[in-house]
């Protein structure tokens, strides 16, 4: 008997009991739909992280002061006092370096009128908006003169501006107080949202780093340097060159540990991407279980079907069906159920992903891999779970089958 004929017989048999066919299919539909949706959500999360990294500047390199140890007591990262403004200046000479912004941070209560807000005071350099491709919403970023003169000027992050002055209010020209010192607001940055690390990048106040170290902190060292490479493909070379330069400048002997940390954003992002990948795998596995349950459902129904149709099988054998023909018929029935179920499941997966994306604002990204995987798995499930009932049908004795009540 030809495959086409077997297919036709199987379709007729399935058509004879539509309700049961549809219910059996439902297991496959939900299984495949769940796998596709879960993978889509996982992939969507990963894509979002990657996009955030890109928007933060893929060729960004962060140099942080290392840990500071004094008499065996090790302070936390960024507390080392060895990173100084001159280090940042020296980095400008390294080939491939495009922008350099020295940074010195502190936390402080910011006061404007009768409002106050505890926020991050980021002392930085004029290059920062260029490195981060970050435009100002109102006013402008501070100038090189402000930095060299350690002027008390401030550029607010949008969250700080909204908190202190209200939404959609241009606060340029106003005076805020940081650690009891008056700062003139000269600009507000556009909103940038969460960073790749999950921090709110808008909850901050930018001031010249010179102002932080001289006027606010009274220190000689800086906490970090933000560098951008001219192209993203040379980022690792540039990072290495910075490391070598800093070791020389800090007179670190070979074999001794760095007193600073050089990290590229990609490195940081890869950790997060890995996390997202793990999540995707986890979600897909859970969804895979439902696919498995769907498969067992097929086997269950096929077994019931074989018992119920014992007389039919006996009759088919009596009129000339070989064991092989019967096996193939039931196998094809199972495969047809799982494949059609799989196809509907793909549709369901698309629908669910779109719905989640739309109503829950979750990014979803349907990948061809996930579709192929789910569909292939559906077909395999059909063959695997259809085989046992089919073999049971094929091994029936026609005489016994015809007598079956």
């Amino acid at each position, binding site marked *: 008997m030809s495959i086409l004929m077997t297919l036709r017989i199987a379709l007729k048999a399935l058509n004879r009991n539509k309700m049961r066919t549809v219910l059996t299919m439902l297991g496959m539909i939900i299984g495949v739909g769940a796998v596709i949706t879960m993978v889509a959500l996982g992939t969507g999360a990963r894509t979002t992280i990657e996009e955030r990294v890109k928007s933060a500047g893929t060729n960004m390199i962060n140099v942080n002061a290392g840990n500071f140890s004094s008499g065996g007591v090790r302070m936390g990262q960024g507390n080392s006092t060895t990173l100084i403004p001159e280090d940042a200046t020296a980095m400008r000479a390294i080939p491939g370096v495009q922008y350099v912004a020295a940074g010195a941070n502190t936390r402080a209560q910011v006061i404007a009128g009768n409002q106050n807000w505890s926020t991050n005071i980021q002392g930085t350099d004029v290059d920062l908006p260029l490195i981060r491709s970050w435009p100002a919403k109102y006013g402008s970023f501070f100038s090189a003169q402000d930095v060299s003169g350690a002027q008390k000027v401030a550029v607010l992050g949008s969250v700080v501006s909204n908190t202190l002055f209200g939404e959609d209010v241009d606060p340029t020209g106003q005076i805020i107080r940081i650690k009891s010192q008056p700062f003139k607001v000269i600009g507000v940055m556009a909103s940038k949202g969460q960073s790749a690390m999950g921090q709110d990048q808008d909850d901050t106040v930018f001031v010249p780093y010179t102002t932080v170290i001289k006027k606010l902190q009274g220190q000689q060292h800086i906490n970090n340097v933000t560098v951008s490479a001219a192209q993203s493909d040379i980022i690792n070379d540039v990072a290495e060159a910075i490391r070598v330069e800093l070791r020389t400048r800090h007179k670190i002997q070979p074999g001794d540990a760095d007193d600073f940390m050089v990290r590229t954003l990609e490195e940081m992002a890869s950790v997060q991407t890995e996390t997202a990948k793990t999540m995707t795998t986890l979600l897909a596995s859970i969804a895979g279980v439902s696919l498995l349950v769907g498969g067992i459902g097929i086997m269950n129904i096929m077994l019931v079907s074989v018992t119920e149709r014992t007389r039919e099988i006996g009759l088919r054998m009596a009129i*000339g069906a070989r064991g092989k023909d019967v096996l193939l018929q039931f196998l094809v029935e199972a495969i047809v159920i799982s494949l059609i179920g799989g196809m509907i499941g793909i549709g369901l997966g698309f629908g669910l992903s779109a719905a989640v994306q739309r109503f829950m604002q979750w990014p979803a990204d349907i990948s061809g891999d996930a579709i192929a995987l789910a569909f292939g798995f559906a077909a395999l499930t059909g063959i695997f779970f259809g085989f046992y009932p089919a073999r049971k049908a094929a091994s029936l004795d026609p005489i016994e089958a015809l007598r079956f009540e």
Partner: protein
Amino acid sequence: MDRADLAAVAAAAEADGNVSIPSGTVISVRDLTKTYQVGDIEVRALRGASLDVKKGEFVCVTGPSGSGKSTFMHIIGCLDRPTSGQYFLDGKDVSRMSKDELAGIRNTKIGFVFQGFNLLSRTTALDNVELPLLYNGGKDRMKTSERHRRAKEVLEIVGLSKRMDHYPNQLSGGQQQRVAIARALINNPSILLADEPTGNLDTRTSIEVMDIFQKLNLEHGITVVLITHEMDIAEHGTRFVKFRDGKIQIDEQITKRRMASEELKLLPPPDDDNSHVPPSVAEQKQQQPAAH
């Protein structure tokens, strides 16, 4: 296989010194035995049965239950293989064939009619009749139109050409059995094997079905082997075979053959032969749950 082939095969078998098969013999059974092992007990269902059935005969087989007639019929129908003995169907030894070969023989050489009709439910009469054509081993595979033509032909023979698009549950018991007969005929079998074909039918319908068997036998020359335990049904044949204790006890020609067409004239006119009326509850109960 035509007659010349048949003779050649028979001659070849004779030359081998095995068995001599008279020409024109469709079924030739020699010393058939069948022993079942049921737990520790050996059940000897057949203890040496020999029978020759010529082409065009109408053999009615009877016997009490346990007499071996069912086992005999299963072997004749190639559903089972004998423990010993030989069975030549159309001159071909089928007693030692493999399961798949037997399936092929059943498909092309044997037409089965069962007590319970065994029609596929939710499948039209036409599709039911075509079913054996789907299993013809992929050899001379037929086009759909050709299959339809053949199915219509045989439905015509059993007088059901107007009901070919009906489903089994829209047909009376007698009509269902006629569909089953048409299905048995579609591959032009060497023998029509009927196992209690009237067991589920009332008297009038039984005679109607016997009428069809007789017509097929007389007008189309089809060899019929019919198993029944009702004597008046058995008397419609040309030959009477009775089994007892796994052996053939009586084997004789029927001299006063009953003719179903005559009997029908004597019966009151049919009151159930209109398909426009939906089948009664009793008839629905008779249908077989062959497929769901």
